[in-house]
């Protein structure tokens, strides 16, 4: 499917927003969460550029599943490291093991449902963390209300992930054309929510 000029523009703005976030960083973040956030927004930035250069065909590559895991895993790691101090080591372990599990189950020629189960589990935990943690923190006064926007971004990344996962699994929730039509807008909204959320936190 050929990408429209509007979609290219949306992806360019997404990449610029992600680049902005990488450049300004997160105020007061320690080294590890800073690296984690840089990886997350860096992947968003490069993914946006690659989509502009290669078009939507790049989404058919098997490596997309692995790369798209990096965004929620690294974002959630940054959040947990900053806000759930007691669970830092445990969550870091989960991120490393989860990523390796996805990598292995995608690279090995497995014919059972293990790759899908692993992907759903790891994505699910990371996605729920990004969605719930900022909202709970904002509602309980442990962070400003603006920080809840990061949770909104988490919800949007979840919607995008679901749409793409079901599409790749051959059971699309919406037609491929519709998904590809809304994807750049969804990516932009998600990135804008993350950037605004971190700025207002």
């Amino acid at each position, binding site marked *: 499917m050929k990408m429209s000029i509007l979609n290219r523009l949306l992806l360019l703005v997404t990449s610029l927003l992600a680049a902005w976030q*990488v*450049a300004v*960083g997160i105020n007061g973040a320690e080294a590890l969460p800073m690296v984690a956030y*840089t990886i997350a927004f860096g992947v968003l*930035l*490069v993914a946006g*550029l*690659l989509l502009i*250069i*290669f078009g939507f065909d790049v989404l058919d590559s098997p490596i997309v599943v692995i790369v798209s895991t990096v965004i929620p895993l690294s974002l959630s790691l940054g959040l947990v490291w900053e806000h759930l101090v007691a669970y830092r080591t445990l969550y870091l372990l989960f991120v490393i093991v989860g990523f390796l599990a996805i990598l292995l189950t995608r690279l090995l020629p497995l014919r059972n449902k293990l790759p899908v189960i692993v992907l759903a589990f790891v994505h699910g935990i990371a996605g729920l963390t990004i969605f719930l943690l900022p909202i709970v923190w904002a509602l309980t006064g442990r962070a400003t209300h603006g920080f809840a926007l990061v949770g909104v971004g988490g919800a949007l990344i979840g919607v995008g992930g679901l749409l793409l996962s079901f599409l790749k699994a051959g059971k699309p929730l919406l037609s491929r054309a519709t998904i590809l039509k809304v994807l750049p807008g969804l990516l932009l909204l998600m990135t804008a929510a993350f950037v605004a959320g971190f700025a207002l936190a």
Partner: protein
Amino acid sequence: MNNLQSAIRNLQSKLRLYWPLTKSLQTGLLLSTGLAGCMSARCPVMHWYDFLGLALSLFLAIAGSTIINMWYDRDIDARMKRTCNRPLASGQVSPGETLRLGLVLSTLGVSMAVTMSPLYGLVVFAGLFFDVIVYTIWLKRRTAWSILWGGISGGMPILAGRVFGLGHVDGIGILLGLAVLFWIPTHILTFAMRYHEDYQTARIPTFPSTYGFMATRTTIAISSVLAALSIAIAGVLIGMQWGFVRLLAVLSAGLFLLAVASVFRPTERVNFGLFKYASFYMLSAMILLSVGALI
């Protein structure tokens, strides 16, 4: 009145023919490296007319040498599908007119540069000399390694810009020049692979035709890493803020991953995607070096 109108129309049509001779995108990219080189010097005082002079002298010298190259390579351009419609190869502009234009622009550019600063002028002249004499006239038709000299001449604008800003040659300037030199293979060799048959028809030795596609892709991957490292080290030495260094690292990682993908999953699409990304990467790196020096 009619004479004036026809003179203006004549000038407009000439400019329309001359503009493609300058390879505006390539010239623009090299010009951006020169301006970034100057900004990287962090001059405490920089007058707008100095900066304008730098931009104009570099543009004239780069465009002039590009036009002379096109004049010299007109027989090659006429044989290649990709270039046979260029104004000179298709006979819209005469060879004599093209050579005169190239010489006038080059002379103006170098003269202006020498007037502004003799050392800066010398570096600009060195870039022109390496590009026209060493790369195009001497080596391009003899060896695939000619791109090394093309790369050295490509690194001259950024070094020239830095020399203009500082007043002397320094290690960072040479490192920035090396960054462009290492970046050139990613730009040129992906192109040489895409138009492999064209170059063979024109009997121009290239890396793909001499060493094969696999060796060429590996060369691109290695040179991409070296280019990224050189720019990053130069950025740190210049004193760029960590945020800009992080952004540079992210963009470099994208370049490296695409180069690796072109080695292990080689397709025409990945190859040309790498070419486009490499151009974007260099422009972004130059913007970051410039903005990073301002803040």
